[in-house]
């Protein structure tokens, strides 16, 4: 075997190892990984340059490079989006670590000023020219998130129902999850609130598919869930639904089962996103890599691997975080705020009572 081949083989091997390396590494291992990543980055660059050269004949294009990101765009647009790409690159490196799978293949987000552009072998996303830096950043970030999201696999996409939201306010998602958890007409949600972690997983749509309807909903729950959106004027209710609403529990379950994937899990996309964000945050460095490493593995195992903890522990942590996200006051006014207001009434009254006796003649 020639020395060049040995070098390439070692490099590829290191690149492969980078996907599965555990979070804790020695200094030497880290240095080796960095070298491997640089090789991979160089390969991504060359692909991008190839694309550039192919297309430059037809369009004036530029490539914006920053960290793990490569963005191809019309020249004028490239100038505008360069700061946004740099900021997004910083966010990606901060939140997901520099060794994300972005480096294994080029991520070419195509920006265009109205004219679509397709490039073989690259992720394609469209950015219209936008006025404000914030909007441009958000748009680039959205496209990067969408590209990362696609790498997570179809099973994950089907379950999550939305984007990863790694740049989204996790606290906001948790608050929405709280509202979902306490208001969802679902047996699983009620049991989850009571402390049953398996029910929490079920309510989030995780776990085995068998008997999911009965795990998620009671008959009364189904009467609420199935009846939503069915009272369309002029359109008669289906016989099965009518029987369900009349009290035939078996009809309710049969109708629910017949909906198949159309029957959604009790807790919505925001609640599921809150779990993913929690797992990514707890997992630390390399968490995203672990999430997308094996798209065929069960979601519970992937989430546990992402978080770096057993799944029941992750579920328990999620439940406690969600319950703690209850709104501070039912009417937005804490006891302290009310007492402060009462104090101000007294202060202002005292000012009013100092109304002067002396007036002008």
């Amino acid at each position, binding site marked *: 075997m020639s020395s060049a081949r040995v070098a390439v083989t070692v490099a590829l091997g290191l690149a492969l190892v980078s996907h599965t390396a555990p979070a804790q590494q020695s200094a030497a291992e880290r240095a080796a990984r960095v070298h491997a990543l640089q090789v991979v980055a160089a390969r991504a660059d060359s692909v991008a340059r190839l694309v550039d050269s192919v297309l430059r004949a037809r369009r004036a294009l530029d490539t914006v490079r920053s960290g793990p990101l490569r963005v191809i765009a019309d020249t004028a647009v490239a100038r505008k989006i360069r700061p946004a790409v740099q900021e997004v690159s910083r966010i990606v490196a901060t939140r997901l670590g520099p060794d994300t799978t972005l480096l294994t293949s080029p991520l070419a987000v195509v920006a265009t000023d109205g004219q679509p552009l397709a490039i073989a072998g690259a992720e394609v996303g469209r950015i219209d020219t936008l006025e404000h830096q914030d909007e441009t950043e958000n748009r680039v970030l959205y496209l990067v998130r969408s590209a990362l999201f696609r790498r997570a696999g179809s099973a994950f996409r089907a379950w999550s129902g939305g984007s990863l939201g790694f740049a989204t306010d996790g606290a906001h998602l948790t608050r929405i999850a709280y509202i979902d958890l306490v208001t969802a007409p679902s047996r699983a949600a009620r049991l989850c609130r009571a402390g049953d972690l398996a029910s929490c997983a079920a309510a989030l749509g995780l776990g085995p598919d068998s008997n999911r309807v009965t795990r998620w909903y009671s008959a009364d729950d189904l009467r609420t869930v199935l009846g939503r959106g069915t009272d369309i004027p002029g359109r008669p209710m289906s016989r099965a639904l009518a029987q369900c609403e009349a009290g035939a529990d078996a009809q309710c379950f049969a109708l629910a089962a017949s909906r198949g994937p159309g029957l959604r899990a009790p807790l919505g996309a925001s609640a599921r996103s809150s779990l993913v964000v929690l797992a990514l945050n707890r997992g630390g460095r390399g968490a995203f890599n672990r999430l997308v490493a094996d798209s065929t593995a069960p979601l519970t195992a992937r989430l546990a691997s992402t978080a770096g903890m057993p799944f029941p522990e992750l579920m328990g942590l999620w439940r406690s975080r969600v319950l703690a996200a209850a709104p501070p006051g039912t009417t937005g006014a804490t006891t302290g705020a009310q007492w402060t207001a009462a104090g101000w009434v007294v202060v202002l009254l005292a000012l009013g009572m100092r109304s002067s006796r*002396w007036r002008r003649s």
Partner: protein
Amino acid sequence: MSNAIETHGLRYRAGKTFEIRDLALNVPTGSVYGFLGPNGSGKTTTIRLLLGMLRRVSGTIRVLDGSVPRDIVHVLARVGYVPERPHLYPSLTVAEALRFHGAFFSRWDGHWADELRSGFGLDQDAKLSRLSKGEMGKLLVLVALAQRPDLLILDEPTDGLDPVVRRDVLAAVLEYVSRARATVFISSHLVHELERICDWVGVMDRGQLVAELPMQTFKNGIKRLRVRNAPADVGETPFVVLAREPGNGIAGESWVVRGWDASMHQYFTAIGAAVHAVDDLDLEDGFVELLRASRAPTA
């Protein structure tokens, strides 16, 4: 004799032009004190100082043995005040106004208030904003009297009222005063009106009290003298010379004096002059001469 109202060295300033200087009021208890003065002389301002509505610059104010403004609450409880302009809430009815006012005065006599109201012919359901000037004038006096005050302070109470209403108002005041032995402090520029009812008079002009004396003395004490052969410089006189105007030869000079007494003919004899006529001045003429004298530049 104690005073219902006493001020010493009272000073007040409003803006750059108007000032009350060294006001020394002494209103005897039980008297009907007429506070005379032309418009803008400071009568209303003085009253507001007495009632603690304006802050004095210096000096002292005592009303009914209470110091103003320190004891103002106790003072006002015993003072019936009729202001120059109506001060009651115009959106109330007569009955409501009486109830509101009565709630603040422990001595309020509701029965007498009703008697006065029907005596004055005031409809209890009439809104104050709908009352005529005369009706409002009567209501203001009614409200002040029904408090059973020890001191009535009336600021131009009959100004703008027709003679019949004026008579009714003053009659009610005098009747109360005679029964209750209250003190009345009444300010007006209607000299004839005060002449009939007041036993003391104070004359205000340009923020100063130019005279304060019993009404009889004021009326009787101001005379117009026809004087012949009086020297230019007469030196000290036993009376106050308010004005001295040259005559037309035969009639001689016209002297307006205050504090005249018949025995003072001897003074003129002593200076080689002769008084050939002594004319009484009515209160209004006397008031005018007094003001003219106070405004004359000092030599």
